């Protein structure tokens, strides 16, 4: 009996050990992980995951709206400022950008997209999708790669062109940057190569947002415009400007795009004929939430304060600038009868919004004082917003950020053409079309307030002002003042706002007051610094001047 119990115990012990030793978990490693073979599936004729991979790449297209901290990029230009003092967007105007901190740094971000595109191009041919689809997809990936280089080009000038290489960790990373011209050249060549490989137009509604031929041509035109601009090319030849103009004309010739009839609808319509390429999002109310005046129950944050400089740039309804004695501009009633685009770009005091007038006078509901974050200039940003929704809740609307739109290319074209040939008839025609659509009155002479300019320089100033008003907060002005090398001029001294005082009898007095002291270091700030850590890791990159 005693012996038996010993064997029982030993047996139990062995069972315990065996049990614990032999039980194996079901999987040796996580099987839910997607591998390259799943993504680039040799057996999927629909290429579902490869399509998803391409879809993901689209999400890295350039975005807009309140993307720097909570601010719009143009709050770093002379068009606006953040309502919050000391927010990082101010760094662009106070010289506080350093090689260690740049709120709009895109170096690593763009190389991530370039890698994605190169992996796609290297692997997509194993996926047995239809040839036509394979052709579109590859061209789309190349476009996304090209626009990545454009994002690098406009920020840093030169960048490392990787071609089709997918870098491995064992590779040599100490690579020198290609010159800015080479980068521009590469983008243009890529655009030329793929313009007939992408969809010439969108055949199906579900494809809205995909790259079309017009988008490729628009990227090419934009690149050539930048390449001819003083910032990239101080000694641009007439021929270069002409090339840029021609490229823009090629976009404008697209049968699928034209100006939207109503200026406000450009930013609220998904499939507007004006939009050549936009960053597509689901309907949302982010723009309203971030930028709406603060006094409404639904709780806008009023984060963008447009400047008086921008407000003054808008002409009157007649098209005449406010400086023109004939314009009828009344400093005591400054918002009366202005360019209709003004009312779609800026919230001003007294403008009706959600059932009440906006109060940006001192102590008003939208500028209450006592330290509550509110507009610093007496204005809020109105652009892109829908007026639907109630005072207490938001309703979602389409807010696709325009990357390329027809009106933009028209102004690109006008600018390049004026530089190449001076104020020729085509320039006037483009400007007239823009102003007509804006809702400016034709006037007795039918010229929409456009003066009879004969001088290229005067026309240049006029076009630049037109760009400023037409494309405020569309991330154009921020780059334009760099491209034209005027940032050191327009970002010098003070930016202004309007101090509005309401008397007890309700009378309003308007006073232009300096709000923000700005400066721009022309020695270096026209180009972004290459991030310090990158230069330290791979010194061959070199640094931009004076950083």
């Amino acid at each position, binding site marked *: 009996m005693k*012996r038996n119990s010993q064997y029982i*115990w030993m047996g139990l*012990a062995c069972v*315990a*050990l065996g049990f*614990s*030793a032999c039980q194996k*978990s*079901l999987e040796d*490693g*996580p099987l839910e*992980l*997607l*591998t*390259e073979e799943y*993504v680039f599936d040799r057996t999927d004729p629909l290429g579902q*995951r490869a399509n*998803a*991979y391409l*879809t*993901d*790449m*689209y*999400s890295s297209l350039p975005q807009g709206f309140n993307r720097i901290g909570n601010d719009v990029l143009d709050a770093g230009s002379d068009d606006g400022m953040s309502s919050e*003092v000391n927010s990082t967007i101010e*760094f662009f105007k*106070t*010289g*506080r950008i*350093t*090689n260690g901190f740049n709120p709009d740094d895109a*170096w690593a971000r763009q*190389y991530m997209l370039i890698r*994605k595109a*190169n992996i796609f191009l290297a692997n997509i041919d194993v996926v047995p999708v239809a040839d036509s689809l394979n052709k579109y997809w590859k061209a789309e990936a190349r476009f996304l790669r090209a626009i990545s280089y454009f994002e690098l080009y406009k920020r840093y000038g030169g960048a490392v062109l990787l071609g089709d290489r997918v*870098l491995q*960790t064992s590779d040599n990373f100490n690579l020198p940057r290609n010159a800015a011209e080479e980068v521009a050249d590469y983008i243009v060549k890529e655009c030329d190569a793929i313009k007939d490989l992408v969809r010439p137009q969108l055949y199906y*509604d*579900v494809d*809205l947002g*995909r790259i079309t031929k017009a988008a490729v041509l628009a990227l090419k035109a934009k690149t050539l415009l930048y390449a001819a601009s003083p910032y990239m090319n101080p000694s641009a030849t007439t021929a270069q400007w002409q090339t840029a103009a021609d490229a823009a004309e090629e976009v404008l010739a697209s049968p699928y795009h034209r100006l939207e009839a109503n200026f406000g609808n450009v930013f609220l319509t998904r499939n507007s004929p004006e939009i050549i390429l936009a960053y*597509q*999002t*689901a309907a949302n109310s982010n723009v309203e939430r971030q930028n709406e005046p603060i*006094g409404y*129950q639904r709780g806008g944050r*009023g984060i963008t304060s447009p400047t008086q400089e921008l407000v003054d740039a808008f002409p009157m309804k007649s098209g005449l600038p406010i400086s023109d004695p004939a314009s009828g501009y009344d400093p005591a009633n400054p918002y009366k009868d202005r360019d209709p685009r003004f009312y779609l770009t800026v919230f001003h005091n007294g403008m009706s919004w959600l059932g009440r007038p906006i109060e940006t006078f001192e102590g008003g509901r939208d500028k*209450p004082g*006592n*330290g*509550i*974050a509110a507009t610093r200039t007496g204005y809020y940003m109105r652009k892109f917003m829908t007026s639907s929704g109630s005072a207490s809740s938001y309703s979602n609307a389409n807010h696709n950020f325009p990357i390329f739109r027809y009106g933009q290319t028209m102004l690109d074209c006008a600018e390049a053409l004026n530089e190449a040939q001076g104020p020729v008839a085509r320039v006037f025609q483009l400007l007239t079309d823009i102003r007509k659509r804006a809702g400016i009155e034709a006037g007795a002479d039918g010229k929409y307030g456009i003066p009879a300019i004969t001088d290229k320089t005067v026309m240049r100033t006029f076009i630049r002002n037109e760009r400023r008003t037409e494309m405020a907060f569309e991330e154009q002005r921020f780059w334009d003042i760099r491209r034209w090398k005027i940032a050191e001029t327009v970002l010098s001294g003070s930016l202004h706002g309007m101090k509005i005082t309401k*008397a*007890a009898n*309700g009378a309003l007095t308007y006073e232009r007051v300096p709000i923000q*002291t700005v400066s721009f270091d022309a020695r270096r700030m026209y180009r972004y610094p290459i991030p*310090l850590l*990158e230069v*330290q*890791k791979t010194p061959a990159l070199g640094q931009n001047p004076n950083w």
Partner: protein
Amino acid sequence: MKSITLCCLAGMGFCTAAYAYDGGRTDTLFPPAGVIHRDTADLLLRHTATLSGYSVSGSVLNQAPVADVTNSLSGRFPGLYLLQSTGQPGLDAGLFSLRGQTPTILLNGVPRNYTDIDLNDIESVTVLKDAAATALYGARAQGGLLLIKTKRGLNAPPVVSFTAQYGVQDPTQLPNVLNSYDYATLYNEALRNDGRAPLYSDQELEAYRTHSDPYRYPDVNWYDEVLKRSTPIARINLNMRGGTQKASYFASVSYLDQAGIFKTDGSNTYSTNANYKRYNLTAGLDIQLDRDTEVGLNVLGNLGNSQEPGFFTSSTFFNMASTPPNAYPIFNPDGSLGGNSDYRNNIFAQLNRGGYRTNSTRNLAVDGRVKRYLPFITKGLYAAANVSFYSSYFETVNFAKNFPVFKMNIDAAGDTTYQKFGDVSAQQKNPDVAQVNRQLFTQFMLGYDKSLGQHNISALLLAHRDQNTNGMELPAEMWQYGARGDYNWKEQFYVQLNAMWASYNYLPSATRRVFLPSGSVAWDVMRSGLIGSNNIITALKPRLAYGYTANANAGYFAYNQSYSGTAGYTFGVSPVGTGGVAEGSLVNPRRDWEIGKKFNAGIDGSFFNGHLQLGADYFIHRFVDLIQAPGRSSALLGNTWPVMNLGRNEYRGFEAYAGYRNNAGSLHYNITANLYSEQSKVLFQDEIGRPYPWLERTGKPVGVPFGYETIGYMTEADITAKAPTVTGYTAVPGDLKFKDQNGDGLIDADDQVQIDRLKPVYYYGMQLGLAWKGFDLNAVFYGTQNRTINLGRSSYWEFQGLGTPVFGHHLQRWTPETAATAEYPRLSAGPNPNNHAPSSFWIKNADYFRLKNLQLGYTFQQAWLKSVRLKEARVFVTGYNLLTSTKLKDLDPESYSLGYPNMRVFNAGINIKF
């Protein structure tokens, strides 16, 4: 008091693991001596001759009136630093650091991070430090081990013990918030400093000063409005312990009720105050089945239910620390809640109108063990097996709701209107299972103990498997197996050798296994007869240990390169979100173990017949193959670089302790002190190309912050001389002045130097015990020397975000008048790129000396008790965090981030045994 056995564990530090055992009644004759189970003592004794460790019994730890076990450990163990950073009920566990690393907790021999145990149920807590001492769990012992053993039965008549205690908690320190007048005055000053127009007119300042219009010019001290002065904590424990030779048992039930500090207005049918209620059940059973067979069972379980305001306890404190006193009144004149566009979350309403949340935790640990001697093979041979199951479950239910706030406007005509922000919402009811874990731990041992004349041998073959499953993840499976051999010659020379292997399934198969050898030796000088028996030296034992430990920093199968789903993009005229897929971060397919190479030398001595105990340890811990990103991780790769086993760090330090105990007449007294210091150094880091040597991390303490070196305040003369400032910044007098390390006239990334831990930090603890007749007094002090904290954080700065409140330390700001004595730079209205840059200015000395625990007790005489059939009765008062001395102004040195404050506790209780 008779037949008292004092069992000093040689090599275990001062005689803390002592047990007095008197016919079933246990006594604490010599505080801090407590009760330790014989089995524990034996087990420790057999294998601990050479190890570096320290043990404290549960009854000693139980002197602390704290909810969480961790907080009772402060000051008790040399080398163990404990930081309690919050007093939030249910979440107030302290953070350990043992020789600079986090130790693994072994609860009853099983690695599990479970400390929700009642202090009454703890038998002992032991800290093991060197590689040989921790060898059996070497792949988990990179940071050493903290062993918690719960009580089991005794071969003694049953004793039922009932303890009830009740305490009052109050915050050790609340922020010194300035009032609205000071706020507005300083804000105007800050604006002027920034070259901007002041915001508050003289009229408004006057209104703040006189409080003439508390609605339009409010002055709310949220800490006064929202927090109570004190709040209770109660603990009840009932346990029974006893047994016979054949079977012994321990069973215990406990209840803890720790209330939060919020003041609620009682307008709800439910409480919105924070609180934590814990119910514990602990049971231990040992049965001697026959002469050679022992089986045992332990059950530990608890329910933890906590509650907090619907807007969270943490965010309530965050809002209190970031809302200026003049932001809004709590109520408007019409009784509605105050607020405005910036402040939609009225703090009072968050607490009283925002609903609540419940969190509940369920833990259950069941351990079964069997040990069988195998004398029919050979005497001294035994086999043992353990199976442990542990399950933990955490869920939270959200019963929060929203409320509107109103801003009062008085227009020019004098009419009052209200502007509404936010809306009432229905109370939510969202359950959310946050965490589910389960663990299966199995262990098999084959051991052999034998004495052959002068040779004493002990050998152990061991294998255990630790399988942990987190939610939906595949189980993590760690195997450790190998052998341990102990040998001593005449109890003079001790040698221990360990050969252990470990394997972890989350690592790639090529690197999955690791070999962790270790060994230690010790020499008992007095037994060797080298020094003759004398009155001075009672015992002296030097020891050495060296060996490897490891850490599987494996992530979740992080060696697998994968693609993963992304949010994708929205195509289409009718927007359709289409999911995307993208390459995941690049991985290292040969991800390997991180290895610790630990050297330890120590000596323990006992003098004057054991009245004085001294000991010291010196250690060098090298950690190699540490996972880190390679230095040349260029962004051109276009993806996150894979981590590699590259880093090498070193920690060196020493620990020392001294204890003295004696009697003076009927007064028994003892005093123990410990001291610890450690310095770390990066031996290798894959540095990126650093242009200057001071930028290099190699050679500096591990993880030390870098920043600018402050060399005073900017003066007019500095500004005239164009003293360098942070890029793009125009200095004004009173700004911080930084040293331009490379002399290029710019303060930039090239000028950042090591700004902290320039001196070694010393940690010391002190325990004092007195016993006189029925009275006993015990105290634990804890302190640091050269400890620093980095206050370069927005909660410490002025006017951050929408305008954080200003605190007492802002009054010490630089002004032209106070330039010589200023303790804070000139004020700025918002973030200041120069002054708020990381710099040595914000590294502040945070030394403290704290009376951690104090207990005063009286045990009633037995004769008197017999008439009421009690074995023992005792009353006691205890305290926690009673006194603090620190150079840090207005901040608790342990909890300084303006979250839930640490608590001071005054507590009283009774204990009855029958």
